[in-house]
């Protein structure tokens, strides 16, 4: 069963997403973008050796995360999940502490590369760099939930390249067999570093693969935050009702090189890069809000300034915070 979620909301006053929520969504998208852009500046100025972006994925992530219950549902995002973890409760300061590898970084105390999010209190599960390993974890989180009779969901994200891994197959399959409350979000941005989607699979859509596992596969425009919200909300309802997992494919854009170590001009035609900018999910949602009279220029400028101040504060806070110290190297190998 493949479901295609309506890609475009015609009416902001549609009963399921109220105006306050739409503005909240936009705020998170803009915050994620602003933090992300600041990271690149820190990278260029030599302060952050490594940056990996969520630019172009904001709508998919904010839409999805807004449909989850913060503090209750588990998220297992991958390294592009900046917008996800913001919605789930991480603060700009916490993000910047990781970017600058500070001792106070809640994800890892400066041990992991930035963008390897984790935060137990917020039920954001620690991740490694090894792609796809979080998929079985999400299934296990849901399995434990069933064991105790709870109804928290496990939500996990990954790129389309990662669906080539055995762990994707084994994890999705197990969740389908056991009908567990998992939401699998594939953020398909057409590339795995330099490798196009056509090398990862001989089919046109990751969502179509769901049929092979016996779970619903949902295709959604990953630059449309409202469509993403609805897709996840429906999947969450199914999951919480005990009707099993859902595979959501959100078509996203990778607006940056793979990471600060990459140079995508060697493998991406410049017209493609230019064309992509047109689809920028943040600009797109801003336009919608303006068209619908929800956010005029002045209000937008105010929001932008507020966010810039937050980003400045986070950067300053993290820069002033102490580095993770050499003396902690041996801590916490065992409990």
């Amino acid at each position, binding site marked *: 069963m493949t479901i295609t979620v309506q890609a475009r909301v015609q009416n902001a006053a549609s009963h399921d997403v109220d105006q306050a929520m739409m503005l909240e969504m936009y705020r998170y998208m803009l915050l994620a973008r602003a933090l992300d852009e600041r990271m690149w500046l820190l990278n260029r100025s030599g302060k952050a050796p490594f940056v990996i972006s969520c630019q172009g994925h904001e709508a998919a992530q904010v839409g999805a995360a807004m449909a989850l219950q913060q503090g209750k549902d*588990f998220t297992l995002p991958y390294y592009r999940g900046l917008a996800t973890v913001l919605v789930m409760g991480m603060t700009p300061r916490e993000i910047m502490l990781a970017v600058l590898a500070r001792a106070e*970084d*809640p*994800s*890892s*105390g400066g*041990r*992991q590369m930035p963008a*390897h999010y*984790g*935060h*137990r209190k917020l039920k954001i*599960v*620690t991740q*490694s760099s*090894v792609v796809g*390993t979080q*998929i*079985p*974890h*999400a*299934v*296990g*989180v*849901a*399995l*434990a*939930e*069933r*064991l*105790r009779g709870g109804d928290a969901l*496990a939500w996990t994200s990954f790129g389309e390249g990662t669906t080539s891994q*055995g*762990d994707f197959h*084994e*994890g999705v*399959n*197990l969740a389908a*067999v056991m009908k567990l409350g998992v939401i699998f979000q594939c953020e398909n941005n057409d590339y795995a570093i330099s490798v196009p989607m056509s090398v990862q699979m001989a089919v046109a859509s990751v969502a179509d693969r769901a049929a092979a596992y016996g779970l619903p596969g949902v295709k959604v425009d990953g630059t449309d935050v409202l469509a993403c919200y609805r897709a996840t909300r429906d999947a969450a309802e199914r999951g919480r009702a005990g009707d099993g997992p859902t595979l959501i494919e959100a078509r996203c854009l990778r607006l940056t090189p793979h990471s600060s170590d990459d140079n995508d001009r060697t493998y991406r035609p410049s017209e493609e890069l230019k064309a992509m900018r047109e689809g920028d999910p943040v600009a797109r949602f801003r336009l919608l809000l303006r068209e619908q009279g929800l956010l005029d220029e002045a209000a937008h400028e105010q929001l932008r300034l507020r966010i810039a101040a937050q980003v400045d504060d986070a950067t300053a806070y993290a820069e002033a915070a102490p580095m993770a110290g050499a003396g902690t190297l041996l*801590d*916490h*190998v*065992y*409990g």
Partner: protein
Amino acid sequence: MPELTLLEAIRQGLDEAMAADARVFVFGEDVGRRGGVFRVTEGLLDKYGPLRVIDSPLAESVIVGACIGAAMNDARPIAEIQFADFIYPAFNQIISEAARIRYRSNDDWHVPLVIRAPYGGGIHGALYHSQSIEALFCHVPGLKVVAPATPYDAKALLKASLADPDPVLFLEHKKCYRLIKGQVPDGDYQVEIGKADIKRQGSDLTVLTYGLMLHYSLEAAEVLAGEDIDVEVVDLRTLRPLDTATILASVRKTSKLLIVHEDNLTGGLGGELAAIVAQEAFEQLDAPIMRVCGPDVPAMPYAKPLEEAFLPSPATIADAMRVLAAY
């Protein structure tokens, strides 16, 4: 105290642990209706139901991976790998994930997970149902590796593994399953992870060993006793972390060290043991450190003469003891 086989002791440990803590569940191939291909989990499905005794798909990576997730959501999973030889598809989940989660999250997330795996040979299992896998895991910080050789130790160490806040690889020697019997108390009693046990006191030389080779070494030591050579046999029981205090005390006392394991020689645990002793007890050593180990071939072949040629025997161990004693 009732006498149980190693297998029965493990089953009793599982049963008691499941009765005591509703968070404990068992996940693996054929563990339910079939009770496991060795029957270790026999009876548990009837007693604890299909929510807690779960037949998994035939996919080791997700067996371990899902158990990691469950452990992070406050369950106490016991993953069963049907034969240790089939653990490699799960290697990534064990090494990259289970073992690194506490460290990489700076103590925020923990993985209290037990992975049970029947290992070792001497049962006509051929190249892929006989392997010793411990060395590959003993190198991994964040992981504990336990390999009890007696029913008494097995039940207690299983409980200790389940109580441990970190992932434990629990190795069960297949040939010991039914061969080795011993007294096992009902209910709880303590054997700590990380503590070796001197199974035989002696003064002339130290043997460091574990698993099936413990029993062969004890047999050999008996033979040597008849030749007036007094062998101390240390059962490591936990392979990581090693009980260096007990190891070094024994070698300092006897001044001679023989290491015996079934796993392949090169890069086996014997290397680490030798290195520790050659650094820490060098002054007390009176002879070269010797190793009697499985040879450097992939594993033991099926044909009986080949299987027998692979396995160190009480006789080959006794020979090495004699050489060392005479040094």
